[in-house]
């Protein structure tokens, strides 16, 4: 018996844009969403951020992509239906979904509000859901997700600027908290001023932390200091500047996903300082052991955050009026946006205006 087509798989029609192959080029795609189960929340998608991971996945750069692939895990919208056992949301609420739509709910990680580290976590797109079907992300008109994986967007946050917080935001917020880089008096370096980096600067400043942006582009200096509020700016190729900053940072959040040398970054850390990688280079990096040992330093990683912390992050952003700096685009601009993203040509996140421009 032939497998059901994407349109027939589930009862409710849906429409979005999908990549069909490793070229990563996206085009209109008819598919379907499941019935709103008793614990599910269905919502009309209004905006979806374009995360660099969407680009990696659309092109199968990590080898895990299933086509057709509807990307998008920085999704915000308005609730249209709630299941009978849903307690936290009602129709009309402004909500969001990030990178996760399922987990096992019984392992150590899940029991500790760390669904993002659950060995059976289910990603928002290109993953296998509990019912065996493939998940489709937010470059689409509607979403259905388990209430556990939905966050509330407070009224004072503009939806378009809030969307990127659902991945970029939590990805930098979580390690700032976990590695104790969130108190006044602490000095944090942020490597890379892109989607993740610019939000990291905003969060860290709101936490009272001194922030130095470390970038390969001198052209971003004025932005960093005047617009984002960073305290200082280091060009990573400037030997003198880097030398002067040796041993000055309690921690560094490294957002760069390309292969790059971490030795100079380890040098910037104080004794017992922590280098936290949140970008995920595909190949191993070189770890010089002497500097690690002689300074008792640490290299760690962090991946998004659990659902409880994601809500906490959104509430923190609302309280401090933090949103991402975005360029709103129409759905049919998405392939051009992807090409520009590849060159880092965006300040600092594209957000698709799904509500107004996704049309069949």
């Amino acid at each position, binding site marked *: 018996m032939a497998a059901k087509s994407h349109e027939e798989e589930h009862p409710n029609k849906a429409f979005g844009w999908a990549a069909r192959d490793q070229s990563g080029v996206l085009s209109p795609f008819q598919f379907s969403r499941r019935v709103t189960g008793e614990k599910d929340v269905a919502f009309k998608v209004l905006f979806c951020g374009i995360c660099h991971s969407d680009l990696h996945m659309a092109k199968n750069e990590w080898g895990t992509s299933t086509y057709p692939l509807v990307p998008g895990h920085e999704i915000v919208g308005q609730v249209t239906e709630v299941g009978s056992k849903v307690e936290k949301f009602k129709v009309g609420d402004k909500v969001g979904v990030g990178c996760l739509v399922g987990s096992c709910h019984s392992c150590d990680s899940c029991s500790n509000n760390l669904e993002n580290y659950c060995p059976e976590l289910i990603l928002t797109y290109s993953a296998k859901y509990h019912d065996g079907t493939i998940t489709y992300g937010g470059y689409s008109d509607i979403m259905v997700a388990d209430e556990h994986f939905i966050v509330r967007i407070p009224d004072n946050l503009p939806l378009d600027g809030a969307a990127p917080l659902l991945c970029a935001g939590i990805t930098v917020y979580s390690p700032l908290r976990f590695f104790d880089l969130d108190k006044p008096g602490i000095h944090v370096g942020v490597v890379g001023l892109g989607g993740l980096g610019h939000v990291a600067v905003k969060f860290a400043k709101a936490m009272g932390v001194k922030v130095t942006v470390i970038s390969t582009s001198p052209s971003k200096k004025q932005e960093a200091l005047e617009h984002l509020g960073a305290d200082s700016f280091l060009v990573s190729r400037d030997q003198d500047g880097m030398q002067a900053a040796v041993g000055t940072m309690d921690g560094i959040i490294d957002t760069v996903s390309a292969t790059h040398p971490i030795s100079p970054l380890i040098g910037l850390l104080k004794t017992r300082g922590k280098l936290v990688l949140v970008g995920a280079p595909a190949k191993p990096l070189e770890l010089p*052991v002497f500097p690690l040992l002689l300074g008792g330093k640490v290299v760690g990683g962090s991946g998004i955050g659990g659902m409880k912390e994601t809500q906490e992050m959104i509430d923190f952003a609302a309280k401090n009026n933090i949103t991402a700096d975005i360029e709103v685009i129409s759905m049919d601009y998405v392939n051009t946006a992807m090409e520009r993203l590849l060159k880092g040509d965006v300040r600092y996140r594209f957000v698709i205006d799904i509500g107004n421009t996704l049309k069949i």
Partner: protein
Amino acid sequence: MAKSPEEEHPHKAFGWAAKDTSGILSPFHFSRRDNGVEDVTIKILYCGVCHSDLHAVKNEWGFSRYPMVPGHEIVGVVTKTGSNVMKFKVDDRVGVGVMVNSCKSCEYCHQDLENYCPKMIFTYNAQNHDGTKTYGGYSNTIVVDERFVVRIPDGMPGDGCAPLLCAGITVYSPMKYYGMTEPGKHLGIVGLGGLGHVAVKIGKAFGLKVTVISSSSRKEREALDRLGADSFLVSNDPAKMKAAFGTMDYIIDTVSAVHALAPFLSLLKTNGKLVTLGLPEKPLELPIFPLVLGRKLVGGSDVGGMKETQEMLDFCAKHNITADVEVIQMDQINTAMERLAKSDVRYRFVIDVANSLSQSQL
């Protein structure tokens, strides 16, 4: 014109030194400074042979200066104390480890972290404040600032205690700092040598479940029956390694050769910590995905401060922990170094300085 090592300081001293990158040691006459107001003079009884001594005599790290008298696991007795010395008196049994001085005024020195002081001075192959070279414990006497001397607890054998002054503190400090002390948690120890075997003993004293991870199965019985490890994992056995994925809270990696970290990262649970203590001459490959997807971390640690070194010795005394040693004569040192290079020792050589050094002068 620079003074010769014999004339540099007022008090004659004798030891064995490496003269070049061959690393071969031979008798060497030099001198020690006057005992200053805060110094103690120590007649050396034992000195452990640390793998770092081997790296250093062969200039494997590129900063060796010859002639070099190695040795930073020193046990001896006090023969003289300066007028300001408060903690020690003549005849006390004491130890000296990896450092002999620091700036004493920076934030690290103030936090009892002399090991992280930017001006910390190593026991050998470093430069004193007066510009002269430091010489280590493969010698008959040493003069050290009292702050860098620890008391050897009563009842502890001098030879078994010597290796604790480097190997012991090197594993104890990160175990405390990275929180590897919760009873019931699971610690993996990579490499069963000088550092590794002490880590097993200290790990068991903390109430941890301990798995020894080694590249060969020949150490299994030792690890389980004699050292008290709970289990043994052969790192070259893919099936056994896979079965152990995601089971360890912490890993102490004592291997000093260049080696792959990826398999050990897989053994860690989420939020697991791998602390690397060996000093390979080249960088290691660090895969980032496991760090990001599991919030794991790789940390380093370098011996420990003086307060913590004393705390470690007292902890070992309380739990009857000493190193497993093979005592050798001074003139056997070159053979011992060759055997150490092949890991042919259970688990530390210790030079019986008091009973064999002066004889080697003849």
